[in-house]
């Protein structure tokens, strides 16, 4: 019976996100809390699953940015209700790391950045959002302050894209192990490689996958380093 109810509410959350029906998402999220069901499960298998479907609709050119933003609002409405009820043991098993994110100096386009930020949050990352039009050195400062594993940079214009190259140089100089991910309309995987980035996100779904891959690479490197220290 409980399982049926779980399925029912997950479906409500999922469909509510896809159909950007904030009220429906809120009601289902509240029901999860009131009925003592697992909030983390509801986020991952309800809200996030819905957003995954939204990502597919976006890739199929069924949905565009206005739809994406409406879905994001619906997701956040549910997240606000569910997040305080996540149990520490759920997080402990899945905490993925920390990300510093922002749109580079001279660029105020932050729609893409906000969507990526949301995907990171839902996937269990701790996100330090610097906003838009961010002075380049601020990325370096924030990374050092928070010891984040990933810095994600966004630029929407060919002109501001050049700032990314500088940030990468500045960060790598201080801390070569930080993984840097780029995204934004003018950025391609070639540009990311040319600028010395570690990852490139073509879309919101792909960003989180890239991030998980980057962190596991980083952990492998760190483990190797420790192993080498032990061996020597």
């Amino acid at each position, binding site marked *: 019976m409980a399982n049926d109810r779980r399925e029912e509410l997950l479906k409500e959350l999922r469909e509510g996100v896809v159909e950007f029906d904030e009220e429906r998402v809120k009601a289902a999220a509240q029901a999860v809390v009131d009925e003592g069901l697992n909030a983390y499960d509801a986020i991952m298998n309800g809200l996030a699953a819905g957003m995954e479907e939204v990502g597919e609709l976006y890739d199929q050119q069924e949905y565009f940015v206005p739809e994406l933003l409406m879905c994001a609002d619906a997701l956040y409405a549910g997240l606000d209700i569910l997040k305080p009820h996540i149990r520490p043991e759920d997080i402990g098993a899945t905490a993925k790391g920390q990300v510093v994110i922002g749109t580079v100096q001279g660029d105020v386009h932050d729609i893409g950045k906000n969507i990526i930020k949301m995907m990171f949050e839902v996937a269990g990352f701790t996100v330090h959002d610097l906003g838009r039009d961010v002075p380049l050195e601020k990325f370096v400062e924030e990374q050092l302050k928070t010891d984040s594993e990933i810095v994600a940079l966004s630029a929407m214009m060919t002109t501001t894209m*050049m700032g990314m190259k500088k940030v990468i140089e500045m960060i790598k100089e201080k801390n070569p192990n930080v993984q840097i991910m780029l995204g934004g309309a003018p950025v391609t995987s070639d540009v990311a490689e040319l600028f010395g980035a570690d990852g490139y996100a073509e879309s919101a779904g792909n960003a989180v996958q890239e991030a998980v891959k980057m962190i596991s690479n980083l952990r492998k490197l760190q483990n190797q380093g420790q192993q080498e220290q032990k061996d020597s």
Partner: protein
Amino acid sequence: MTKKERVLRQLEGKEVDMTPVGSTTTYAVKAFGDACGYPRPQADTDPKAMFEFALMGPKLCGWEWVKAMGWDIVPLSEAMGVELGPPTPETQYYVKAHPYAESLEGLEFPSDFLSRGRFPVYKEQFRLLKEAVGDEMCVFGESEGAFTCAANLVGTEQFMKWMFKEPDKVQQVLEVTKEAAIAAANFAFDCGADWYVFAEPTSGPALLSPRFYKKVVLPLEQEIISKVKGPVVLHICANTDPIIEMMCDTGAAGISIEEKADMKRAVEIANAKGVRVFGNVATATTLFNGTPEECYQEAKAALENGTNFLCPGCGVAPLSPLENLKQLRKARDDYFGVKSEWTD
């Protein structure tokens, strides 16, 4: 055939000896400023500097027409009170804050619109250009279009959500920016422009669905273009394949597209409707980041795919190497087997 005849005839769909080459988008190229001794940001605000800078496209790259109205796509937004971030030799003016983000109170089309922002500067730059090269070359003006300007006034994210949540507010803002767009284009024609470009990045499929384009943008552009007294070229970035037909149905004389769009298909659709196509050498990956050879090959491909005007696909990035930009003319001359009369 002079280059002015070539360009005008091509715009009207008449026979020409070869495809004209130039840029119908912004070219805030740093090397242009260095070469003429009037670098940006001086050339963003001073009419004489803006004029000298504009001539560097033809002089250094052999482009066959010249641009008026500065090196960014925020003229309307600026005159409507949008706060701009400062330009540098390497970056352009950009929208920093949205004056009507909180409320639409006080939003109206100002009666002194054409004396606001940099319109007086553009007027003088037009005069200088027409006097110096008006007989031999076409001059075009450009600004953002009404839809993009509207998003700048209230914030793009909010404006996108309003498409669903507040359609009345969307129309309220567009009523005002529509006036601004018509006034700016007619101002340019009064100053002697041969065509006017509306850059509408915010209305393209990178953001907006073709469904909304059809419902909101198409009727908007149709009304604006019907009230503008000269030929309009509509520029939209990213992959515009899904909206090429609608772009042509706006009444525009030409459409300007990026490398992400299919040039061959665009030319087939547009030319059948009597619309000309501008484009589409990639600005980020090729003109800015690529080698001269890659630029040459991409220009050649655009010609093979039938572009009516060989152009960069979008605004040229300030740090694009001069050698790359020269490849457009070189490819055009080689393609038509003419010995270039142009030397820089």
